[in-house]
């Protein structure tokens, strides 16, 4: 293959450039490491379990923080487990939420078994069919840059499936202390502990 597929770390670094007040939540596995590799941040909420929940955590954040942009960074396998949530999210339709799926068509964390996406299921078309405002399949860095602008625009419910290569990157591990990460996000958003 001559035309290079996007590298996941390059994509996430671009999406998180000049992030400002952006709130980010990540699906377990590589997307959490990718977001951590781009720089730990007190507005990052990393999931280490509850597979399928990245999008719903993002929805809860978007609904409770309408003044902020919220970005979900997850993988195709994690998103497939929460596919029904796309319908739930589309019914609420917050205009400050973007779901970015890093789609390599495989379950990277468990040994690169092919996922439904790798069998041809197009997650962006699923999101389109449940009436997300804007959906796209992104295959180049110009598309990633366009998505970056949309993340901050707060004018649409967005979904992008970003085709990436299957290369595995070094694991850059965020904290696995869920209470600490939770309280750090809440403090960054101005809330006090009980």
């Amino acid at each position: 293959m001559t035309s290079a597929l996007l590298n996941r770390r390059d994509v996430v670094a671009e999406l998180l450039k000049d992030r400002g007040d952006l709130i980010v939540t990540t699906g377990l596995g590589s997307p959490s490491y990718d977001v951590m590799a781009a720089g730990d941040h007190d507005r990052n909420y990393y999931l280490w379990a509850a597979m399928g929940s990245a999008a719903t955590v993002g929805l809860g954040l978007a609904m409770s923080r309408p003044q902020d942009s919220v970005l979900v960074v997850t993988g195709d396998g994690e998103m497939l487990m929460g596919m029904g949530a796309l319908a739930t999210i589309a019914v609420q339709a917050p205009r400050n939420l973007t779901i970015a799926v890093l789609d390599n068509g495989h379950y990277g964390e468990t040994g690169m078994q092919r996922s439904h996406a790798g069998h041809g299921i197009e997650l962006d078309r699923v999101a389109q069919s449940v009436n997300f405002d804007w959906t796209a399949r992104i295959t180049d860095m110009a598309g990633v840059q366009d998505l970056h602008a949309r993340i901050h625009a707060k004018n649409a419910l967005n979904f992008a499936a970003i085709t990436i290569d299957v290369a595995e990157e070094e694991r850059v591990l965020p904290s696995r202390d869920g209470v600490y990460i939770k309280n750090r996000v809440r403090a960054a958003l101005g809330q006090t502990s009980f």
Partner: protein
Amino acid sequence: MLQTPSHGVPSIDWKAQIYEVLKEFDVKHAAYVPDAGHSTAIERFAEDEAVHSVVLTTEEEGIGYLAGAWLGGDRGVLLLQSSGVGNCINTLALQVCARFPLLMVVTMRGDWAEFNQWQNPMGQVTEAALNLMGVRTWRAEKAEEVEGLLRGAATMAFEGDQACAVLLSQQLIGKKEWNKAK
């Protein structure tokens, strides 16, 4: 809220009390999979512009949703049926590991006068399953128990980051009418 039925003895409108107690606790998000036992709360929340009513395709979506809402500073509730508790089990790791407050109100099946035996397997282990996953449970059998149990559960959830569930028994809800369409 008291209602006076035709025979003159006041009875407690526990279905309305659920909405009222949750409002008192400043619940801003009501996530649910519909059930007849929750119909009053679902309708009242739908009419309430201060509350986001979030219909779910499956109950575990509510675990993630309410965690996100809490990160953003808001309290919420998950309204579900006992069968839906089974759908939540693995996702409850999110609540346990990150100590998110969680308040569930569960309408029971399979524990009294159950006509559909397919409801029995999950209904009869709902409370044990919740307990195994670290969720505290309280069972309301009578109308006068609902308000107090819900108030206590909400206090422990929102003031102490606990996972709490109030189970509304079938004896409380009443026997399901299977032939009402005829």
